[in-house]
């Protein structure tokens, strides 16, 4: 499995578990949980710098861009204009050309506004961004995103932070068949089995935040997620047996008394 790398836009990713950096108690816990997860990609939000407290610490002092691939997101953006503005600012901060593009459509569900997403993605791809679009589990939208130049799609499993797990495995499977780019299941995972299932279905990676940061023991959950993603990936590659209604004996009948 060590050579089982994920490559997107020419960039090699070591881990298939990607994690967010929000909702932790403090930077130490963030750092420890991310270490335990084995992730080499972390998402960060783009916000105003604290100008009133000169001593305020910086996330990047704990999560070094030398060690981790930093994936800025446009979380909290509800319009194409806002998403573009945040993406451009993220790139101007000089860490990478990657952006996790979120154009949120509704406050209650945080479902993506897929029309806005496609519009914004089109512009950012033209500007040379590597766009990681947070999308619905809709195969047609995923195809449109690939058509306009996205080299990866990130469908949700369930609403962000809901912990409901994979609500529509069949759509996800159709989506994975419909596109010829890596598919990263993003949002909705609640516990380790959800992550394993996503990988067993054939996802190329899983991105999560709340499932780890919101657990009673975030560092332990981060480790659990690491193994779940590994196990799911290996099971996918090994190929599961078909489901049958009736028993099939594992022991031979021959030689019985």
């Amino acid at each position, binding site marked *: 499995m060590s050579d089982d790398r994920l490559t997107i836009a020419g960039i090699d990713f070591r881990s298939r578990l990607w*994690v*967010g*950096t*929000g*909702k*932790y108690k403090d*930077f130490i816990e*963030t750092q420890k949980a991310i270490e335990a997860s084995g992730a080499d990609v972390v*998402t*960060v*939000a*783009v*916000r*105003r*710098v604290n*100008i009133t407290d*000169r001593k305020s610490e*910086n*996330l*990047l002092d704990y999560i070094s861009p030398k060690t981790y691939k*930093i994936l*800025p*997101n446009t*979380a*909290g953006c509800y319009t194409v204009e806002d998403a573009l503005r945040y993406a*451009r*600012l*993220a*790139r*101007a*901060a*000089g*860490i990478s050309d990657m952006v996790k593009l*979120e154009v*949120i459509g509704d406050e209650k569900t*945080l479902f993506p506004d897929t029309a806005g997403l496609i519009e914004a993605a089109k512009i950012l791809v033209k500007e040379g961004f590597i766009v990681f679009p947070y999308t619905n589990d809709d195969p047609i939208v995923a195809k449109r995103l690939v058509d306009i130049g996205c080299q990866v799609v990130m469908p949700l499993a369930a609403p*962000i*932070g809901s912990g409901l797990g994979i609500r529509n495995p069949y759509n996800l499977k159709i989506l994975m068949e419909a596109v010829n780019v890596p598919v990263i299941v993003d*949002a909705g995972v609640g516990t380790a089995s959800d992550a394993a299932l996503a990988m067993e279905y054939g996802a190329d990676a899983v*991105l*999560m*935040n*709340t499932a780890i*940061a919101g657990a009673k023991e975030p560092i332990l959950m981060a480790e659990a997620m690491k193994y779940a993603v590994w196990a799911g990936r290996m099971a996918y590659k090994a190929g599961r047996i078909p489901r049958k209604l009736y028993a099939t004996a594992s022991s031979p009948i021959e030689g019985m008394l």
Partner: protein
Amino acid sequence: MRITLNGEAREVTEGQSVAALLADLGIQAERVAVELNLKIVDRRTFTGTSLRDGDRVEVIGFIGGGRSDDDER
């Protein structure tokens, strides 16, 4: 002269550069992006870009976040 910095009014010296403003704030320039009147300032020009009275300046960096629900709205 007076500028608006991250949404708040602030007195700065006449003609202060973006680089000098960041230094005053104790901010490491390599970790932030600066927007001046809604236009991104190329980081190579932080030193050569002077601020003017009434400018709206945004200094943006990265914080912990994974998902939209991390937003404190």
